[in-house]
C-alpha cells in the first residue's frame, strides 16, 4: 500500500518534470508566412497549361483531362485552326473543386496540363477561384523541355504530312502489292 502510494506520487513528479524540460527543447512549429517551406518539385499544387518549345499551346483539346478528373472541375471546348491543329477555345478549371489529385496530368497525352509546387491560392471572392485559359497558360515548357506533340505525332497538319514526324515511318500503301 505504502509502496503503491510512493510509486504513484513519484510517477506523477516524473511526469511533471519530463513535461517541464520540454520548455528548453526546439519547437516543432513552422512559422509559415515568415519561413517558407521547401516545396518538392513534384508537389501537386496549382495547375498550369504549358507551351511547346516553339511557343505554341500544347493543349490539343482532347478532353482526356476532363474525363479523368474525379470532381469534374475541368471544362473545355475544342476548336480547330486553319492549319489543322486542335486547340481549346476555352479552358476552365474550377479550383474551388479541384482536389489536386494529378489525374489530369497523368491523362494528358501532350504534357500540356501540369501541376506545380505553388499552393498559395486563397481568394476573397469565390468566383476568383475559377481560372480561365489566359490565367492558366504559362510562357514555358514546364517539366518537359523538348517535347512537341505535333512533331512526334502522326496527325497531319499543314506543313507536315503523314509519315514526316520524328521516329515515324512513311505510311504503307495497303492497296499496293509491292513490298
Amino acid at each position, binding site marked *: 500500500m505504502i509502496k503503491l502510494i510512493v510509486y504513484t506520487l513519484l510517477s*506523477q513528479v516524473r*511526469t*511533471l518534470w*519530463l*513535461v*517541464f524540460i*520540454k*520548455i528548453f*527543447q*526546439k*519547437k*516543432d*512549429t513552422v*512559422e509559415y508566412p515568415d519561413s517558407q517551406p521547401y516545396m518538392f518539385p513534384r508537389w501537386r499544387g496549382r495547375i498550369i497549361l504549358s507551351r511547346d518549345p516553339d511557343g505554341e499551346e500544347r493543349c490539343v483539346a482532347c478532353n482526356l483531362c476532363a474525363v479523368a478528373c474525379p470532381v469534374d472541375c475541368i471544362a473545355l471546348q475544342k476548336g480547330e485552326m486553319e492549319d489543322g491543329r486542335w486547340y481549346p477555345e476555352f479552358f476552365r478549371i474550377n479550383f474551388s473543386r479541384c482536389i489536386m489529385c494529378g489525374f489530369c496530368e497523368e491523362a494528358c497525352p501532350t504534357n500540356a496540363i501540369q501541376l506545380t509546387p505553388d499552393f498559395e491560392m486563397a481568394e476573397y471572392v469565390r468566383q476568383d477561384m475559377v481560372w480561365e485559359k489566359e490565367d492558366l497558360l504559362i510562357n514555358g515548357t514546364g517539366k518537359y523541355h523538348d517535347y512537341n506533340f505535333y512533331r512526334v505525332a502522326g496527325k497531319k497538319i499543314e506543313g507536315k504530312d503523314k509519315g514526316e514526324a520524328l521516329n515515324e515511318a512513311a505510311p504503307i500503301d495497303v492497296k499496293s502489292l509491292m513490298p
Partner: protein
Amino acid sequence: MDLEIGSPLTVGLILGVVIVTAALLITVERRLLGFWQERLGPNRVGWFGSLQVVADMIKIFTKEDWIPPFADKFSFVIAPGIIMSVVLLSFAVIPFAPNIGVIDSNIGVLFVLAMASLGAYSVMLGGLSSDNKYALLGSLRAAAQMISYEVFMGISLLGVVALTGSFNLREIVNAQSDGWYIIPQFIGFVIFLIAGVAESHRLPFDIPEAEQEICAGYHTEYSGMKFGMFFVAEYLGLVLISSLITVLFFGGWLGPTFLPPIVWFSIKAFAFIAFFVLMRAAVPRPRYDQLMSYGWLFLLPVSLINLLVTGAIILSSQP
C-alpha cells in the same frame, strides 16, 4: 494618497491589477502550454503575442450575448456574476504586502473558505438554469466536487492555523519570518494544492467542464460576456489559489530585502500559476468516481492525521 491597508487607492489598484492579471493569464497560459507541448503558442499579436488578450477580449465583447429561450432567465444571468464577485471578494483578505491589502481581518482564512463555498452556488445555478443535459451533469459534478474538496482544504489549513494560533492571514505571514510553513506542514501543503486545483476546476480536476465528455459542462449554454465572466473567474480563482499557497506556506511577501515585498509576493504567486499550467500540460484527468474515492478515502484520512500529529507536537512542545 499613500498606499495603506484599506485606502480607496489600494482597493482600486488591487481590483484592477487582479482582473488584468487574470485576463493576461489567458495569453500566458496559452503560451506556456504551447512551450510544454513543443509548440510556440500565439505569438502574432503584439510583442511576442502580448496583445493576444486584447484580441480575445474584442472578440468576446462583440459576440452575441444570447440567452436560450428555454433557460430560467434570472438565475441564468446572475450565475456568472456570483462567481466573479465571490472570487473578487476573496481577494479582500489576501495580504499582498505589509501596506497593501483591503482589510486586515481576524477571520481571513474562514472568509476565504466561506467565499469558496459560495462559488458552488454560481456553478449550480448556471448549470441548472441552462436546462441542458450537459450543463446539468456538469453542475452536479461541480457541486459534489467543490463540497467534498472544501472539507480537506479546510482541514489541511488547520495545521498552519494551529502553528500560528490565528486565523489572520497577516499574522500567518509574519509568523513565517523564521521559517516557511512548507517545511513543518509539507503534507498540508500537498493536500491544499490538490484541493485548490479541484476548487478552481483546473486540469487534472476539471471534471465539471470536461470538454471531451460533457461539452463545456455547466457553461455549455453561455456565450459572449457571460461566458467571459466564467472564464475570467476561473483564472481569478487560479490567481487566488496561488496567492493563498504563497501566503500560507511560502511566507507571502517575506524575502531578502533587495526587492520590495510586493515583488516577492508576485514572483512566488506566479511560480504557482506556472505550476498549475504545467499540471494542465502534463497530468491526465481522472475518472469521476476515482476523484471522489481519492478525496474521501485518501485525502481526508491523511489530512486528519496531519492535523492530529501537528496538534500533538504543538502540545508536547509547550512547557
